[in-house]
């Protein structure tokens, strides 16, 4: 096998093989403190500033379980329709690595807190696929290694490494799907839709920042192929470093094409970890291990088992927020949306934003229109996610309110939104600073109307002669003169009154 693996055309892959997917998603919880100690759980702080004897694994230190993390894990499990284990434990996963302070990771192993659930996904064409959830378990994150002196930033070729233990001990939930089969050519799309749906669910639960770019949501994609007509799974590869929704789709697609070429070429797929390379869209084999790692799992003796009472489970179950699919159904009914309208809303990533804008007081139609059209364009041109635009639903709702009051025209409203996006403050501040209020002062408008009529005496004559349609030219001139800030309807009224026979 050469380094630049052959790829089979995608259509040919599907003719001969059925893909099997397994997705492992790691979610960093946004708890105030770490999993087993009181250190702050904060991204982006000065290296090694949020550490203590426990998360540094100093001799003699002991873990104390974060109850908030357990509760978050249970809520995630419940939202994924999982059963919550009446009794479960942590185990130690033993292996040596410098960014792991104890040289073992405290993780759940064969006794996870949540098992056997499902997640319904909405695909781009509006159809639904249900993915089975094998388990969701709790573990701690490792520290972070910064390999220096190599061109790739990877350990290979590095001269030295720097270690930041701020992330060590951050609570993680690992969510593992059951094998996803029978999705054929849509496998890459399903993979992306799964991670999207999971991200939206976690966001609705408010348990994580779910920022793939910051690593608070990380996806490992297991891909294998089985020849059409066979029911035995092929050898899988696990692709890591898949750091965006688009990458999930690309990585799965690439692996399918690569593995198909390997298999058709008479070779066997090597079971290995691969890394997704964002720039080339390909996967690269990780360092191959001589022997498979034996993690020597055994129950963590420093922690006591977790036995959530049925009352606790019931209470969490009863207080789950509205989940994405429940929200979709409600919104569609309440707002009277067609399937296509709902799909557009969801595909634009606008559903949560529109709901929030409506919750802040805007009428659904206006809220939807703003997010799906004008703001989507802005997001596109800035190449960011809609949710990352620097405007809050509450501020947009205020803009809509100002339009409703007649204080802004649609045109002005866009300029107000531009101001907000430019960081000039809230809508009212932008209106004031940019002097964007509708000119509703009749005396000011009257002067502009008189000026316009004087400038176009022939047009004025026509209007007086009963050709009311000619008023448009005068209105246009007034609007131009007032920088678009006049209420065109009022201007027209004034023009007609002036030229009344």
């Amino acid at each position, binding site marked *: 096998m050469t380094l630049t693996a052959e790829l089979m055309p995608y259509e040919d892959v599907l003719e001969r093989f059925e893909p099997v997917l397994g997705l492992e998603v790691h979610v960093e919880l946004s708890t105030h403190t770490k999993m087993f100690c009181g250190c702050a759980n904060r991204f982006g702080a000065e290296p090694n500033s949020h550490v203590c*004897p426990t998360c*540094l*694994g*100093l*001799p*003699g*230190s*002991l*873990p*104390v*379980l974060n109850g908030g993390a357990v509760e978050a894990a249970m809520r995630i499990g419940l939202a994924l329709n999982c059963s919550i284990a009446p009794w479960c434990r942590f185990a*130690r996963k*033993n292996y*040596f690595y*410098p960014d792991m*302070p*104890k*040289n*073992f990771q405290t993780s759940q192993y064969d006794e996870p807190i949540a098992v056997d659930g499902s997640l319904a996904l909405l695909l781009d064409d509006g159809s639904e696929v249900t993915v089975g959830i094998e388990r969701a378990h709790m573990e701690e994150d490792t520290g972070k290694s910064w390999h220096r002196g190599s061109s790739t930033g990877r350990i290979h070729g590095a001269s030295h*490494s720097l*270690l930041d233990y701020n992330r060590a001990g951050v609570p993680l939930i690992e969510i593992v799907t059951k094998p996803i089969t029978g999705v054929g050519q849509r496998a890459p799309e399903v993979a992306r839709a799964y991670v999207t749906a999971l991200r939206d669910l976690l966001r609705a639960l408010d348990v994580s920042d779910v920022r793939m770019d910051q690593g608070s949501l990380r996806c490992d994609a297991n891909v294998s192929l089985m020849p059409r007509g066979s029911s035995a799974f092929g050898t899988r590869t696990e692709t890591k470093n898949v750091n965006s929704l688009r990458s999930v789709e690309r990585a799965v697609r690439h692996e399918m094409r690569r593995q198909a070429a390997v298999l058709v070429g008479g070779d066997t797929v090597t079971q290995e970890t691969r890394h997704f390379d964002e720039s080339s869209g390909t996967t690269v084999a990780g360092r191959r291990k001589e022997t498979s790692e*034996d993690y*020597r*799992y*055994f129950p963590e*003796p*420093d*922690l*006591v088992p977790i036995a959530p009472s049925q009352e606790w489970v019931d209470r969490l179950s009863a207080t789950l927020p509205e989940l994405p699919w429940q929200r979709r159904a409600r919104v569609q009914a309440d707002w009277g949306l067609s399937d296509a309208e709902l799909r557009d809303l969801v595909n634009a990533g606008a559903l949560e934003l529109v709901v929030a804008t409506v919750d802040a007081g805007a009428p659904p139609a206006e809220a939807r229109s703003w997010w799906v059209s004008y703001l989507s364009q802005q997001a596109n041109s800035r190449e960011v996610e809609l949710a990352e635009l620097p405007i809050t639903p509450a501020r947009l709702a205020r803009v809509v309110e100002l339009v409703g009051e007649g204080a802004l025209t649609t045109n002005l409203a866009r300029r107000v939104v531009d101001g907000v996006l430019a960081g000039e403050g809230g809508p009212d501040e932008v209106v004031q600073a940019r002097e964007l209020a509708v000119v509703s002062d009749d005396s000011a408008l009257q002067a502009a109307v008189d000026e316009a009529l004087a400038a176009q005496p022939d047009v004025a004559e026509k209007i007086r002669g009963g050709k009311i349609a000619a008023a448009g030219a005068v209105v246009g001139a007034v609007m131009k003169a007032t920088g678009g800030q006049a209420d065109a309807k009022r201007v027209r009224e004034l023009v007609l009154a002036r030229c009344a026979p």
Partner: protein
Amino acid sequence: MREPTRRTAAELARAIHAREVTSVEVTRAHLDRIAAVDGAVHAFLHVDAEGALAAAARVDAALDAGRAPVSPLAGVPLALKDVFTTVDMPTTCGSRMLRGWRPPYDATVVSRLRDAGVVILGKTNMDEFAMGSSTENSAYGPTRNPWQLDRVPGGSGGGSSASLAAFEAPLAIGTDTGGSIRQPGAVTGTVGVKPTYGGASRYGLVAFSSSLDQGGPCARTVLDAALLHEVIGGHDSMDSTSIDAPVPPVVAAARQGATGDLAGLRVGVVSQFSGEGYQPGVLRAFDTAVAQLRALGAEVVEVSCPSFDYALPAYYLIAPSECSSNLARFDGMRYGLRDGDDGTRSAAEVMALTREKGFGAEVKRRIMIGTYALSSGYYDAYYGQAQKVRTLIRRDFEAAFERVDVLVSPTTPTTAFPLGERVDDPMAMYLADLCTVPANLAGNAALSVPCGRSDDDGLPVGLQVMSPTLADDRGYRVAAAYEAARDAAEGETLIHAVPELEVATR
């Protein structure tokens, strides 16, 4: 005050609190004694004279200002096993790996001692990472038994027990994973208590085997041990396995026991702990003690605990398994020894070299045994089976405690053995913990109280008293009653029969 180093902690506390003597005077007397005899005994790895005198002065100042003592042991000196973290002294665990390591935090037990005004004299020698039964596995050289300097003081807490027997400290702290408090107590003629698992915090106790490790008090009398037990015991939110329940009333039990009445108490003699491998003189001393208990009114019966026969093999799978994981953190990356970091080697190579150089033979042996026992394909046969044995042992205890209030046995099969005798024979060394490991595996309370001397070699013998989980007070009651009766019969406390050590001239 007559020679303070010969007094009990209770006597010292009373005299200090009554201002008959100052804590500084008492502390200085012990520091002088250490300076005089520790060259021969080597109980201490580190002595903090300055820190101890400062702590003593603070206690004196508070008492002089008319304030009540902060605890019943305020002002009394203590020797701390070097396995507890201390911010003001190195913590080495008897290992080259941690030579000179200064932890950034105090163990909970240490904070409690400081809060109680107990004066910490220094850190005591131990088998490396508490693995051993003779203190010969210390990277800093062995400790010698004050009863006979060519004998071991037991282990792993030989330093703590020897410091008591050498009158270098009236109190000490040890840790007991398979007998490391009780066995050294027995062979040095001192009292050693393993509280119920979870009875004293493990936070800051450098772990050997997390599910077995238990810190506890060491002293020359049962009452002193009880006083210390109440200072260090109780729930700690930093240790998830510490028990959230009041400390059993051990001081009251010791005082009640000392009145000498055990009428109605049911005592079970464990039939498994006798016979082949037991030194005849030890068994005779034990039988005499049992007769004494009967004379005090106890009803003595024989109790069979068949699973105890498997305790030692189970222990030598569970403890190494946990240790193989607990000691993985010593890799030279963050603290302690680092070897081979010359700019040409990878992190993995530096880790391997560091561990090769930093750990002694016994520690390596156990890491290898534990790594093997946890490996996939072997886990069920070794670690899994051992955990089942553990359950059976717990059931044996439960069944026994339905019939009797406490169980008794010799603490160790033999008296202190000669230095070097068992260093090349790990199995013989492991047998020293034969009688003590069941209580670690089951988690219940157990202690060792001196029960005379073996008539064949004149060395001290220990009587082990085991009580149910959280019924630590029962053991104290029995031990105090026995201690009082034995001392009365012999005319003096056993420890005063310890030979005078040759005092170095300062």
